[in-house]
């Protein structure tokens, strides 16, 4: 069977879609060789990410087993994870500027 999505590291809390997926789809995944299934809340385009677990606002998003940013709001399992609910924590001169004011 063709894989619909991939989890790159067992520490990750997001998966990456390898096809265009619809809201309501149940996606079968493998995490650490164990099967996991996630029901999608939003449509997920090829190459985009969705959450494997409920993620609290302010906690870190992990892909490749490494930090790729911070949740800016609570994210439910199966939700689209992207720039609307995740912020980069690096090169944020705007944050430094706002803090200085």
């Amino acid at each position, binding site marked *: 069977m063709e894989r619909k999505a991939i989890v790159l590291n067992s520490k990750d809390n997001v998966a990456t879609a*390898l096809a265009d997926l619809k809201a309501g789809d149940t996606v079968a995944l493998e995490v650490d060789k164990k099967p996991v299934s996630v029901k999608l809340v939003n449509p997920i385009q090829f*190459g985009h990410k969705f959450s494997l677990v409920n993620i609290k606002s302010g906690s870190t998003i992990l892909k490749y087993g490494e930090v*790729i940013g911070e949740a800016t709001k609570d994210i439910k399992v199966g939700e689209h994870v992207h720039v609307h609910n995740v912020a980069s924590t690096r090169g944020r*001169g705007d944050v430094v500027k706002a803090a200085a004011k």
Partner: protein
Amino acid sequence: MSFRGYLRPDGSVGTRNYVAIIPTVVCAAGTARQISDNVKGTIPFLHNQGCALTPSDLEMVNRTQTNLGRNPNVAAVVLVSLGCDPIDIDGIAEGIAKSGKPVEKLTIQQVGGTIATVEKGSRIARQMVSDASRVEREEFDDSKLMFGAECGGSDTTSGLGSNPAIGAAFDILVKRGGRAVFSETTEFVGAEHLLARRAVTPAVGKQITDMVLRYEQRFLERGVDMRGTNPTKGNIEGGLTSIEEKSLGAISKGGTQTIQEIYEYGERPTKGGLSIVDGPGFDAPSLTALAAAGSNVILFSTGRGTPLGSPLVPVIKVTANAATYQKMNDNMDFYVDLARKENMGEIGAELYEECLSVASGKRTKAEILDQDRYNGLFVVGPLA
């Protein structure tokens, strides 16, 4: 394993046999291009720099032009300057000549305008092409190769497929005694700790983290959000959320071997094995850094697809995005099937084979479609 290349007087081996026409300053670019248009077998290295530079940028432009001329794919060089530009044409010519290559200098204001310079330059270049054409390809061990890696027009598939495939090819070459270089300091942000761990010494590791912090600091000092530039709009549409995510995918193009050395833009490595050149994430000037470092084959990973090549070095386009491979097939050279992701070693070996055939003369699509005239030179500018 072996490939068929051109032996240069300094012992390096070219995969191409160009007479390079290099304008030292943008004002000479049109004249340099006309010389090249007249003489088959030449290639112009066009750029928009060479005047009104800060002292550190001037030094960088001088050394970059010198080391472009020393690239093993270049048989001989014609330098074309304006005359009032600050570029050290004598120093550049001397630096290139040290490698044993023929170099000639032309200064437009001295020769007397474009037509006279084109006439003189074309005659010199014609003789250089005639001499260079007598050098034949011979068989060399693949350890004479130096791969450069670039990624541009990235999307999620770059980090999943095309970058790891290039990394696997890098690993093969480095283990076989060849050299490899990657760059794009911007795209180490968030992944620098992983690179630093692979450095040959803690001091080299610190150089890696320091150069990334130096870059990030520019954004912090100016109160701007890096997300305005990186990831780019196209990266975000392709599914990349943050610079950290982009970087974690980008560094896999460097493979897994020990990082021996870090050097500045326009410089060449002094050691064998895998190295990093501190350079921009912008593809065109980054390709120039790889060429100046001495790469004789460049592997270019792309998700969204790009036609860009390099004037002096064959560029192999690698994509793991099936839609891009189909839609932009005229520009894509090698496809990485994500369904085979678990067999990245095998894919790397196939890509390595492709590198050997390109090194031996197989034309890349960027070469065939003439997408290799313009890469430009990087300058930092007065604000750094």
